[in-house]
């Protein structure tokens, strides 16, 4: 792997940028691997990278039906934060946030992590009480958090409508300064390039059609490019986890729904933080190239079509216009949907399944992007040591039998 640096930029510039090497190989599948990771999104690629870099497991393939980072990794609103209410979730997401902070250096790839702060608005007295509770819980867990008054909110976000006469007046907000946004494609590409350098095979355009098992243990996967043997199969297929589970004769506590987002035409810098609102339901930030990135809600019913219902967009944009009257004349460029796997407690499922050698990392619901580094790290550790990483332990599948759910629905800042 060629190191990206200022000297390498000069060297290639002097040759008119015509001889940059490929960022990763395009290998043919081997007959068998130690570990096959199904799903070439951020989480799957991060898992492969940490397996190789932290645990020395390099006989690994990442199998992707489309192209790398083409699923939810390329469809989210790129928000990174860790202000979750419950201890288990807060520890996992904050561990992930810690990895974000050094990720560009570690991968030698600029993931454009920009800790510009994340703000959750409160519009009712009850919401302000919930915010106080959440910020206090965060601080007890060592996570940064502050409670802002309306005046402090207005000072940070001048375009925000903080008038007491608005329909849902802003009463305050929670504020996590270490939160922010990152470049979503770069995260997938950075992990892909770094994993490839360790010898991990990235197999694109390879769709899994079956999971082969013998005596209750996994032996490999059937794909559109033939059978690939594996000792361990790790499924990281957000949006299609239920489909994969059915191939292995399993059921999951998951329902799949489209979650929508949209971006506007590029504007001059006007919003330098992330603003989220539960009550009117929208979240918005401005990407470095100037687009407003707007997160909408999830559909109220199951679906695998990667598009959402138009009524969700209408509701979200009416909320944006209520909060930012100046944006009412901004034109929207693109709109899309990604399929999110939602668990009853809005927390992921990480770990072993009843089939030996088959692991799942799924159910991240509407908040998987921020967890990409942490998810890959703990999942790789779980795979390499064949026991749950301490941070992943509470997220095992058996919590749905024991009842030890980690209720983050509505507790985690954004309720959908």
């Amino acid at each position, binding site marked *: 792997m060629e190191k990206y640096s200022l000297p390498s930029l000069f060297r290639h510039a002097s040759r008119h940028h015509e001889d940059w090497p490929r960022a990763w190989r395009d290998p043919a599948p081997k007959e068998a691997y130690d570990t096959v990771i199904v799903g070439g999104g951020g989480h799957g690629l991060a898992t492969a990278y940490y397996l190789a870099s932290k645990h020395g497991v390099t006989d690994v393939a990442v199998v992707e039906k489309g192209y790398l980072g083409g699923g939810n990794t390329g469809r989210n609103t790129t928000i990174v934060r860790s202000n979750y209410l419950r201890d288990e979730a807060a520890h996992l997401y904050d561990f992930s946030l810690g990895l974000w902070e050094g990720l560009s250096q570690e991968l030698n790839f600029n993931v454009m992590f920009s800790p510009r702060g994340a703000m959750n608005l409160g519009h009712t007295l009850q919401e302000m009480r919930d915010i106080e509770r959440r910020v206090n819980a965060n601080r007890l867990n060592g996570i940064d958090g502050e409670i802002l008054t309306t005046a402090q909110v207005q000072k940070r976000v001048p375009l925000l409508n903080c008038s007491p006469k608005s329909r849902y007046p802003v009463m305050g907000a929670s504020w996590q300064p270490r939160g922010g946004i990152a470049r979503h494609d770069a995260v997938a590409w950075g992990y892909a390039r770094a994993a490839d350098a360790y010898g991990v095979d990235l197999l694109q355009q390879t769709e899994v059609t079956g999971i082969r098992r013998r005596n209750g243990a996994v032996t490999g996967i059937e794909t559109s490019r033939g059978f690939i043997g594996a000792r361990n199969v790790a499924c990281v297929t957000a949006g*299609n986890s*239920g*489909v994969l589970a059915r191939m292995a004769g399993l*059921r*999951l*506590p*998951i*329902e*799949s729904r489209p979650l929508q987002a949209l971006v506007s035409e590029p504007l001059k810098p006007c919003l330098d933080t992330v603003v989220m609102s539960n009550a009117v339901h929208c979240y918005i930030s401005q990407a470095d190239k100037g687009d407003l990135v707007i997160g909408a809600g999830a559909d*109220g*019913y*199951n*679906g*695998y*079509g990667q598009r959402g*219902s*138009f*009524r969700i967009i209408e509701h979200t944009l009416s909320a944006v216009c209520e909060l930012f009257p100046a944006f009412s004349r901004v034109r929207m460029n693109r709109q899309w949907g990604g399929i999110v796997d939602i*668990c*009853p407690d809005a927390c992921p499922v990480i770990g072993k399944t009843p089939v030996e050698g088959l692991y799942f990392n799924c159910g991240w619901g509407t908040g998987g992007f921020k967890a990409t580094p942490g998810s890959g790290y703990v999942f790789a550790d779980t795979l390499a040591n064949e026991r749950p990483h301490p941070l992943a332990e509470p997220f095992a599948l058996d919590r*749905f*039998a*024991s*009842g030890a759910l980690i209720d983050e629905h509505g507790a985690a800042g954004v309720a959908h």
Partner: protein
Amino acid sequence: MLHIRCPYCQELRSEEEFSNAGEAHIRRPPDPAALSDAEWGDYLHFRKNPRGPHREIWVHTAGCRRYFNVLRDTVSYEILEVYPAGVPDPDAPGEPTP
């Protein structure tokens, strides 16, 4: 945007009037106390979540406020069938109605 024909009102209305209430034809176990934790957890939390035709419950929230069943394709979003609550599961006709 879905358009659903309520089987009671017999009118084709926008999805905005309706609410989804999840998978249909889930039968409450007759004797919950007799179940293991895993079986009870399965009843509470585990769903079919198919990629394709899905039987689900809808409520005509802004209309007659009554529950009914819909067979809908989760990929094409086409509504294949609408029928009142209480009709036995056509896929498992022998089972008692939930």
